[in-house]
């Protein structure tokens, strides 16, 4: 993934308050926000960001775009992403929550065929503290350093970043793959990227009940990741069966209501992968320090 501070960034759905507000925050953070898109708003300016009607018009006028951030309403997100792919954009962060999973299935078929990276949906995106903000992470919780945070949550990710920052541990990156059933990028992809990233020396993985991506991540860490990883799983005390929409339904059918998707299943997976587990957010800094010794 191209995450250079000077990479060119687009915002789709620029007319939404949240989009233009965060657009101007990203600009202030140094992100190279080139333009916004909203059909019917071509020629207008939002928080100093020029707006276009179509993504292809932006590319025609400004040149190739590295990353687009999608802020459009949930049912329009698929079309916005397909429009970006058709215009040659190969990195897409979908901020919008509420995308129906079958829209994601459709998008991922197209993304895989075109080698496009999708982060999200329902994700605050990516922050490289001090360098680049691609999304809605509140930058005040982050400080530059060498710990990578990979998560499925938004606010819980900030909480972890804050704990690290308070303990004097900076972060190399904070990324949320998004809290939805079907996510574009996976824990595995990010673990691999951070394992290869020379600015990252340790990884904090934050999980929660639902699906089986944490279990897959635990196995992958044991097999392929050289850097130290600390895991934290929220939801140990959450009632069973209530998985906040994360449920891996195939697993539920095949597993027939067994332990699938529970925090306990995830904790067990990390335990057997010998990944240190934090019991609460405040415990993470000490485990990181210990791992980096």
């Amino acid at each position, binding site marked *: 993934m191209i995450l250079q501070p000077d990479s060119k960034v687009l915002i789709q759905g620029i007319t939404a308050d949240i989009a233009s507000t965060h657009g101007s925050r990203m600009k202030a953070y140094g992100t190279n926000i080139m333009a916004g898109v909203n059909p019917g708003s071509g020629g207008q300016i939002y928080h100093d960001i020029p707006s276009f009607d179509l993504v292809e018009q932006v590319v025609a006028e400004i040149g190739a775009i590295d990353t687009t951030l999608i802020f459009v309403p949930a049912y329009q997100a698929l079309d916005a992403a397909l429009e970006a792919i058709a215009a040659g954009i190969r990195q897409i962060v979908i901020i919008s929550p509420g995308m129906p999973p*079958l829209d994601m299935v459709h998008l991922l078929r197209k993304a895989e065929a075109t080698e496009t990276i999708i982060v999200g949906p329902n994700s605050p995106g990516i922050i490289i503290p001090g360098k680049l903000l691609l999304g809605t992470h509140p930058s005040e919780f982050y400080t530059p350093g060498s710990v990578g945070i990979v998560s499925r949550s938004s606010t*819980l990710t900030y*909480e972890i970043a*804050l704990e690290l920052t308070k303990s004097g541990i900076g972060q190399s990156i904070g990324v949320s793959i998004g809290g939805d059933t079907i996510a574009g990028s996976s824990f595995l992809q990010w673990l691999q990227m951070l394992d290869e990233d020379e600015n990252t020396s340790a990884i904090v993985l934050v999980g929660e009940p639902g699906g089986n991506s944490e279990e897959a991540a635990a196995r992958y860490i044991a097999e392929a990741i050289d850097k130290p990883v600390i895991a934290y799983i929220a939801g140990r005390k959450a009632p069973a069966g209530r998985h906040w929409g994360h449920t891996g339904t195939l697993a539920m059918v095949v597993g027939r209501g067994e332990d699938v998707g529970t925090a306990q299943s995830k904790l067990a997976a990390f335990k057997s992968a010998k990944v240190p587990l934090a019991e609460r957010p405040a415990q993470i800094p000490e485990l990181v320090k210990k791992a980096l010794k």
Partner: protein
Amino acid sequence: MDLLEYQAKEWFREMGIPVLPSQKINCISDIKGLKIPYPVVLKSQVRTGGRGRAGGVRFVTTTIDAIAAAQTIFHLPILGEVPEVVLAEAKYDADREFYLAVVLDTATRRPVLLGSPQGGIDVESSLELLQQVVVDGEFSPFYARRLTIKMGLQGALINSVSDIVEKMYGLFVQKDLDLVEINPLGVSATGELMALDGKVTVNDRAIVRHADISLMSQKIARRPSGQNYFDSLGNSYQVEQSGNIGIMGNGAGLVMATLDLVADAGGKVKTCLNLGHGSNLNPSLPSFGDRIEQGLEFLEQDKSIQVVLVNIIGSVPKAVELAEFIGKFIQRHESNSTNKHRAATSYPRIIARFSGLALESAQEQFTALSVPLVESLDEAVSQAVRQAKSSSHRK
């Protein structure tokens, strides 16, 4: 959203999936108007499983039997759920029973076709027979045929069963489903197929874009949608029946982390609410401020909740706004209350945890409300637990 069997079968019928003649029984007197010839099967229309074993499915041969059986079923709770409707259906003698499903798989991030040549209640005991076909590309009927071959079917059954799978997939995509299941699919001695029981789960995210499904979901909620944001499933959940703490936070993960901390500290949590994002892209959702107020009202209704821990992190909203939203709630309840003594208010004690910019600027407002504003999560949790243990019961 789970459909009831009779609703699932209506969709099956529309798609051309064979189902038996059946009739909806809303009340006992409907039995007399039964147009299906006896013998008939009466089935409790509940969303929970294990209906057969619990006595919710009864075979009857006369009107007198049917009335008695329907009466029993209408009063029989299955895992706590009593049916509003009983389905009367013709009896069918299946030679064999298959299992078929289309389901979303989060691992491959694709729909998966499932099939077993041993359906019915046997499917759970013979999971090794359950075959899977991932629909990696766009669906075409050959995926369905691939499933039937994996199931070991031969001859005419290959086409007839894959034709049903094709229709199930059509329903899956057309109605934005998480799951469509036929179990059992009856197979007669002559190879005729019949969907004997069906399960359909609509993805909650997609309900609003289907006018027909929106209507069904409003009927299930049994009240006009949108009265209180937390009435709708997914935004709230109960933890411990005997708990006395409510948790509200902005984000599912954060709420769960807070719940774990409170429970670990010895607190008993009754209810958790997820406020969702600070700002949102869906104009039909209530504003964040309204959601905070609705959440407090929602928790206030439950008289066993003594303490509410509000945990907000991030840059939207600002701390002063949070104070305002909480203030509105308190004012409304203070003015309703005759007894102004804090120790015995009619609403729960509130602990506000806020982490974000300009925390200090709101400190004064919170003090005026007598609501502690705490920055550290651990500290907020211990205050909430302490408070909950010492609280007397609310009036």
